[in-house]
């Protein structure tokens, strides 16, 4: 099935299931530079009780789970606008409540960021969605492929999981 035929996709972070699903739908994976699709996968931070978190550890989790994601989105939106075309941006991470307080803060903020960017860039044809899940399998890959495809043209600003535990 060529849902993503003719589209280039950049995956920042590691998620073999998503890479496999995107390629299977015809997307051409690129390592860097401009792309039609951008997927950002954040590795979950180590789980520590809140009272044991140092300020540096807190900042590192917020940086990886929020700051870097925003900066990448901004870069993606600027490039898409300059190219005069839309694009699809997808954030992938662990569920909000699954890890420590640092991840909970980053993932909670990411939800609001997703909604705001989704609306702010809707008219430019740039869609922004998030999957927060503990799952790493085939359904995650297929859901990601759907969300970055034109079949999901009406889905933006959405934050969703995969299973009931998400």
């Amino acid at each position, binding site marked *: 099935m060529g849902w993503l035929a003719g589209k280039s996709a950049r995956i920042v972070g590691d998620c073999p299931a998503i890479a496999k699903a995107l390629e299977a739908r015809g997307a051409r994976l690129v390592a860097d530079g401009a792309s039609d699709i951008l997927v950002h996968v954040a590795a979950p931070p180590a789980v520590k009780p809140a009272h044991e978190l140092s300020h540096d550890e807190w900042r590192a989790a917020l940086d990886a789970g929020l700051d870097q994601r925003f900066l990448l989105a901004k870069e993606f939106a600027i490039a898409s606008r300059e190219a005069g075309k839309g694009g699809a941006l997808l954030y992938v991470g662990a569920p909000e409540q699954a890890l420590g307080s640092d991840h909970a803060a980053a993932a909670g903020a990411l939800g609001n960021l997703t909604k705001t960017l989704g609306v*702010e860039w*809707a008219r430019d044809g740039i869609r922004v969605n998030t999957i927060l899940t503990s799952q790493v399998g085939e359904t995650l890959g297929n859901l990601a492929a759907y969300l970055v495809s*034109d079949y999901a043209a009406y889905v933006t600003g959405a934050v969703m999981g995969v299973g009931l535990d998400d």
Partner: protein
Amino acid sequence: MPAPAHHIVATQPPEFGWFSAMTRTPMLARLTGQVIVQDGGESLRRSLMMPDFVPPRERADGPWGWQ
């Protein structure tokens, strides 16, 4: 003038049906308990600084062009 919200629902773009169909296939076998809104972000607009909503299929340069 942008189409009113009820117009968007009334026209039922095929995107709605496509995803409904996908949820019934093995592709999304483990997807459950999720609420997925397909409204192009319209329901998320909260402030006047947010741009007017234009349904994807009504954008001249939308993903499906003029189809």
